């Protein structure tokens, strides 16, 4: 829209009222625990980094929608979250490069590594799979939260 001043997002700074805020305050910790469980047990149970990261991002977006942009920006620094996404991707690539003496994506931690090589089915097993799940979970969570906060902060339309 040319010639029209873009909206500065003042409308999003109000929260959604007492009922929604109370329900969000109750449910956000449970959603967070569930998402962390999905990410941590990615190599044992259905789920993984992407699914758990999306669940955690759902908790963050629920906080943003229920409490408004002003409260969310106190907790979420958009630039830090954008940087954390890159860190997650780099950790993923680094875990893939660990077994580069044999092949890219060779699971050397599982075959002859110092740690993460416990009995199959325990939490500290499966070599680089927990590291990769944590990296992808961090990447997806921080990326989605950064995009949601960016959309809320820099909206250009009115209403």
């Amino acid at each position, binding site marked *: 829209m040319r010639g029209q001043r*873009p909206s500065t997002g003042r409308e999003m700074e109000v929260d959604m009222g007492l009922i929604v805020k109370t329900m969000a305050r109750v449910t956000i910790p449970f959603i967070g625990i569930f998402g962390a469980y999905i990410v941590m047990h*990615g*190599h*044992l*149970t*259905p789920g*993984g980094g992407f699914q758990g990261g999306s669940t955690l991002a759902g908790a963050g977006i629920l906080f943003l929608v229920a409490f408004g942009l002003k409260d969310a920006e106190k907790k979420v620094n*958009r630039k830090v979250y*954008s940087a954390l*996404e*890159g860190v997650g*991707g780099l950790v*993923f*690539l680094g875990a*893939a490069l660990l077994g580069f003496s044999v092949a*890219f*994506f060779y*699971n050397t931690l*599982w075959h002859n590594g110092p740690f993460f*090589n416990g009995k*199959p*089915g325990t939490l500290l*097993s*499966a*070599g*680089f*799979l927990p590291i*990769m*799940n944590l990296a*992808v979970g961090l*990447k*997806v969570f921080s*990326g*989605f939260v*950064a*995009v949601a906060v*960016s*959309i809320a*902060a*820099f909206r250009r339309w009115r209403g």
Partner: protein
Amino acid sequence: MKQEIAFLSLLFILGSLLLIANPHYGLKFAFNSTHEWLTYRYTDNYYITHGLKDVGGNNIVTDIVFDYRGYDTIGEATVLFTAIAGAVALLRPWRRDEK
């Protein structure tokens, strides 16, 4: 008139689908015997039997996604990174808006 033709053609399509997708003489979407399954889907069997030994995760899907098909996951992570970078870059205040 148009509606009747639409309903009749829908019925015709569904009936022909029932005929085509009948497993006895039409298309087959699954294998009947274990032998046939092992002949055509030996890759699935390899992942199921070797996944725990090769990669170590109980979740075979995670084994495939992060080890056997790791390049695919790298591409997916790159796509996600590019999408989010583009969204954040487009959604910041533009230079025209700042004055």
